[in-house]
């Protein structure tokens, strides 16, 4: 029996995989590819490095975190890609960004010395570097995500768990937070927000990596991307192993929170030259 129709596929772009690859970001790609494959959907990844031409059409763009020096190089190159990226978004494509990716999607980044680095302005948010004496925000995070955009999941809260490690404090304008932190610092350690979303642009500070153990978010991104690719609705798929890993991470984070309650916050001060 030969199926003459092409198997459904998602065209995905990984921005700067060689340079922006810290904190297990590979796991995010592995999760997307793996959980798509469970539904017989192929994810066709294309790497776009500094200076590369992006493809004309794509359903999903992923951008990870990077060291300080490469992040500056990425910011310069991203300015070149802004028209393309904003075209992807206008066309209904999905953008998923982690940590540095979240900061770069925002309007601007204000360094400790007051100098400004322009962002893409695709999410209405801005990030302020840690001021002298302010602590770096490091640790396990558990957040509640209510009604992820476009999920049709109204009223149902989802758990998001991961690990944050950032000096920058992000404050949202019109963008909505992705979740509310139950454990951890989130965007700025003050307002309880974690990540940001606007339409099909979703960003988080969470590493860990975030997608493997939060299968619902992986499926949510895949569902949006498949819809954009014209592949119809995403079929259900098992997620027992993913849920075990999520529960384990939540338990660790909640134990940390209980301990922090007794001893104060265990986060060291930022040092000169440290990444955001």
């Amino acid at each position, binding site marked *: 029996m030969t199926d003459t129709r092409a198997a459904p596929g998602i065209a995905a772009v990984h921005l700067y995989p060689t340079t922006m690859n810290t904190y297990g970001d590979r796991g995010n790609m592995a999760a997307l590819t793996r959980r798509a494959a469970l539904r017989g959907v192929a994810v066709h990844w294309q790497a776009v490095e500094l200076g590369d031409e992006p493809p004309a059409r794509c359903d999903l763009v992923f951008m990870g975190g990077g060291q300080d020096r*490469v992040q500056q190089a990425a910011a310069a190159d991203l300015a070149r890609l802004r028209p393309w990226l904003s075209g992807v978004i206008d066309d209904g494509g999905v953008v998923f960004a982690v940590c540095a990716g979240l900061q770069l999607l925002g309007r601007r980044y204000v360094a400790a010395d007051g100098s400004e680095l322009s962002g893409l302005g695709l999410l209405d948010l801005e990030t302020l570097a840690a001021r002298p004496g302010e602590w770096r925000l490091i640790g396990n995070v558990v957040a509640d995500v209510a009604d992820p955009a476009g999920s049709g999941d109204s009223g149902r809260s989802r758990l998001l768990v991961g690990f944050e490690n950032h000096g920058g404090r992000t404050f949202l304008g019109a963008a909505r937070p992705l979740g509310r932190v139950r454990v951890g610092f989130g965007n700025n350690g003050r307002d309880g927000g974690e990540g940001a979303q606007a339409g099909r642009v979703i960003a988080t500070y969470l590493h860990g990596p975030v997608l*493997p153990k939060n299968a619902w978010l992986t499926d949510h991104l895949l569902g949006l991307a498949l819809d954009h690719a014209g592949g119809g609705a995403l079929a259900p798929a098992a997620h027992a192993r993913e849920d075990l890993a999520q529960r384990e991470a939540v338990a660790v984070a909640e134990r940390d929170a209980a301990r922090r309650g007794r001893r104060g916050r265990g986060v060291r001060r930022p040092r000169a030259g440290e990444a955001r």
Partner: protein
Amino acid sequence: MELLPRLTARCVATAVRLSGTGQASSMPGKVANALFPGYLASHARRLSAGLAVVTGTNGKTTTANMAAGALIGAGRDIVHNSEGANLLSGIATAFSRRPAARFALLEIDEAIVPEALTRLGGPRVVVLMNLFRDQLDRYGEVDRLAAGWLAALRGLTATTLIANADDPLVTWVAQESGCETVFFGVEVRDGHADHEVSDVTICPRCATMLAYSSRWLSQLGDYRCPSCGFARPPRDLAAGALTTVEGHAEASITGDIAGRLRLRVPGLHNVYNALGALALTQRLGVDPATALESLAAYQPVFGRWSLVRRGDTAVQVNLVKNPAGMNQTLRALREVPGEKALVFVLNDNIADGRDISWIWDVDMEELLPAADLVITSGTRKHEMALRLSYAGVPDEALTSVDSVVAALRLAAERGARRVYLLPTYTALKEVRGALADWEVVRQ
């Protein structure tokens, strides 16, 4: 001045041993340093034959132990933190144990090099092994560690560096420091690490993307900056024609020393460790032929490819703590013939790094050796199992258990004769306990 701190450390050591809570390699020095803040500096001033330091992300303990073996074999009296306790506490403990030694060989945690050298003074020799991503939550990124090293080494005109030429960041630190440098490296014509996560992708000097003609382990390879001319420097000591036979690595050595390197441990990483040890001992006046003989007899310390046996079951233990090390471990395991059971023990305690994202940067998809049984344990056993599952380990071969003892029991039930135990740093203690009554095998 030093008698009191020393006695303090000895008393604490006795207490720790009596309580049975550990090897007493850190706590005695921790107490001594706290009560007598000048102890390290005053002891270091009495090291009339000087100080040698080994640092880097991977290979510190093995390199320092290999060098110590050759030095002790050549009749030197040295103080050495052989058990891998490489913070200020471990150094003070080592000092308190051998107060009369006039020479110290210290492995020092890569993140505390600046602070340690401030206390200890300028070493005669510093071996810079490599810089890989490790415990990002504690150490930050490799660029920052390199900057710390450079600040600590710059201006130490009496210090000789022994530096890994194959690591662009290490090379950059050595060249910028202005110190006299002996470069070592390996020759791998056809490196296969192009798909591996690399921690140094852009030129340390000018931030252009580095070009590689061959890359064999993370960022280690034959690199060149197309823009500013920064490139892998000529090697004063090189290893070529690398092979591993029956779990024993071999190579031919050229340059300042010519000869045949034979080890009882496998893998490219151990060839690097041996090169560092060879260059170091030569610098300290040990005859190269004697050093090569000593390396050929080198027995690993516990947890660094150490082997134990009970009945017809053999268990080999190797610490894994970052992607570069795990990649290299898996690669070495593929060189070992025969059926095997693998046990991954992943903890996320502070000394392991709370952030376990690194397991996802390991090249499992490419490098995981065939195994009939794969077991996970540790505080993050389910995440490890998920990682392995995503890498293609079938469900029927994959099990998670609550302890190392349970893992060994399961392996025995399934008839595994050869078990490879890969624990993170704090898990090594549990492994040590679980294997306490097994017979140590010379390799």
